[in-house]
């Protein structure tokens, strides 16, 4: 049973022998969660991913604070401004600034365009006042993490860390809100998926018999058909005139349909392997209700596996949501999500001239990778007794 460090052969006269037996002792008396943590710690990528996932959910919680502009405030004149480079040092002192923009008229198209003017320095300020919002939906605030000071909201004196989209909306601020929506959708959908999976899988595994056979065949059928066109059809029939909040909830429902089968399979497998364990029989003999047996005795014993499977289900939902929203069938403007943002880059000509529109691809990929690695690590840790 190797959990932390490899153990030396017993009885060796190594001077370290004493500490090793101490380590061995530590392993044998450690509680389960401790063993899990030791196992999880060995998966370095999972550790890094944990940090990333925490970071992502900090963005979810503080999106309003991290954004510095209204994500929906459009201004035709500011369309497709390139990202501004942030200079950290000015004259060797720490004083971050961006180079100012100056508006000119394109001599060919007579359109108003903004070019960088290196002589103008727009200083960044820490915790400036900006548009008002409610933190966590309750605490009224108007401070933001960074921003620029100065009178008015002129383009010459504004900040565009990630540039603007075709309607002149600030990409950074939009990205913060999009991250909030996309990851919240993922979380809510996976929670509903989990509920469905535990319910159906539990039913299947605990009752067994014909119920089990029927449920298993249904799952098999669902897994053997191309489901994306199906759920696309479902998503498309959500009426166009619904408001964002309603669309959000219906979409999370549809997305949760996407991955419950896998979760149901995992739960059923666990139920089947535990149903005839002695502690279950004991509980039955003592006269526990079925409900109590399932939720008090069975579920806690495979909770860790379920958590791992749930984490691994998240990337699929994120991919699905992003794809559908990208096509305009999932979240729709004025709603925001990573897919909605990437829609701006769906025209290759536009994307070729303004490649920063493709930047939301980065958080999408990083989030999917992070959840995958985290899930991998959790799956390993869920069973700390194996090799």
């Amino acid at each position, binding site marked *: 049973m190797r959990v932390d460090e490899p153990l030396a052969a017993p009885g060796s006269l190594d001077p370290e022998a004493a500490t090793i037996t101490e380590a061995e002792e530590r392993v044998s008396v450690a509680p389960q969660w401790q063993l899990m943590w030791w196992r999880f710690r060995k998966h370095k990528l999972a550790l890094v991913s944990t940090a990333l996932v925490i970071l992502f959910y900090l963005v979810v919680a503080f999106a309003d604070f991290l954004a510095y502009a209204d994500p929906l405030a459009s201004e035709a004149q500011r369309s497709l401004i390139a990202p501004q480079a942030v200079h950290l040092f000015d004259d060797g002192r720490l004083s971050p600034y961006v180079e100012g923009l100056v508006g000119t008229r394109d001599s060919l198209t007579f359109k108003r365009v903004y070019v960088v003017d290196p002589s103008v320095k727009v200083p960044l300020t820490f915790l400036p006042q900006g548009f008002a919002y409610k933190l966590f939906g309750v605490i009224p605030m108007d401070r933001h993490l960074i921003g620029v000071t100065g009178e008015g909201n002129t383009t010459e004196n504004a900040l565009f860390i990630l540039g603007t989209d075709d309607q002149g909306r600030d990409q950074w601020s939009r990205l913060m809100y999009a991250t909030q929506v996309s990851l919240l959708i993922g979380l809510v959908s996976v929670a509903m998926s989990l509920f469905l999976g535990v319910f159906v899988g539990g039913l299947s595994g605990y009752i067994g018999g014909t119920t089990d056979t029927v449920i298993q*065949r*249904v799952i*098999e*059928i669902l*897994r*053997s*058909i*191309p*489901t*994306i*066109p*199906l759920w*696309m*059809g*479902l998503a*498309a*029939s959500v*009426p166009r005139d619904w408001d964002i909040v309603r669309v959000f909830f219906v979409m999370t429902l549809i997305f949760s349909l996407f991955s419950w089968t896998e979760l149901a399979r995992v739960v059923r497998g666990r139920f089947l392997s535990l149903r005839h364990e002695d502690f279950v029989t004991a509980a039955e003999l003592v006269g526990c209700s079925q409900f109590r047996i399932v939720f008090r005795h069975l579920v806690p014993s495979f909770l860790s596996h379920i958590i791992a499977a749930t984490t691994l289900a998240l*990337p699929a939902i994120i*991919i699905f949501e*992003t*794809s559908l929203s*990208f*096509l*305009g*069938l999932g979240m729709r403007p004025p709603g925001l999500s990573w897919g909605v943002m*990437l829609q701006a*880059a*769906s025209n*290759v*000509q536009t*994307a*070729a001239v303004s*490649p920063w529109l*493709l930047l939301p*691809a980065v958080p*999408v*990929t990083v989030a*999917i*990778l992070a959840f*995958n690695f985290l899930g991998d690590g959790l799956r390993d840790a869920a069973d700390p007794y194996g090799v």
Partner: protein
Amino acid sequence: MVRRLILAIFTVIAISILSFLIIHLPPGDYVTTYIAEQAASGGTVSEQEAQNLRIQYGLDQPVYVQYAKWMGLIARGNFGMAMEYQLPVAQVIGDRLWLTVAVSTAALIFTWIVALPIGIYSAVRQHSILDYVFTFIGFIGLAIPNFLLALLVLYFGFKYFNANIGGLFKPEFADAPWSWAKLQDLLGHMPIPAIVLGMAATAAQIRIMRANLLDEKRKPYVVSARVRGLPEYRVILKYPVRVALNPFASTIGYTLPYIVSGSVIVSIVLSLPTVGPLLFKALIALDMFLAGTIILLLGVLTVVGTLLSDLLLMWLDPRIRLEG
């Protein structure tokens, strides 16, 4: 085998019910849409006319009767009318269905041709630099949604080669009747959609093959083959690879639906003339007869494809044959 056939039949029935539900999901029916269309173009439809239309299309009957009627029509090859095009659905879909099959098959072939050798290599040379490179590429393949990959391919193609990579045909062949030259053009356009579509599945398959072979490689029969002095390539290829192939091959049942699903989205981004963009347009226009038919056809094709590949595997591998 009989079990599989029965399950396939049930699957087809399930798909037909689901597609029928999709058709009936949006509020209103064909006639309300028709009235709205007529009103938009200035015409009017009287209450009597609407009633007649409803009776003509059987919309006044209960849902299960409508379903039975629909199935009856489909069995006779009549898929109904595509409202937006004012053409029979079968005619609107036309070649697109077969191009969908072609693209999905190409992606599947790509997945296998690439995943098999890389999986074997990664297992045999575990922890080598190339193994890590392949693992890394595999993770990227899993992490980039395929519409995004398609978008990036388009972007880089446009930016650095100044070429529009999308589509399956050169413009001059797009509407031309089938010919040898058109087929060649199609084959020339096939690699990019196949790679984009097959990327995620390939990554998953490499992981499966690698894990299987790593498990097999440590078994005593491999050691004994080696002890007898067999050349290394035979030790690996003749025994553990053949054992590891079985679970690898049986994943095709989940790979095909996955690829067909993806093809819908990738086709829209790469503007391939498959049923993907058609389905998308139909869904946006709420042309549910067309959409439902496409969903039904995609599902049935996938079931048939899976069944065919199962048969192929049975022919290849006696163990599956015996399992029944």
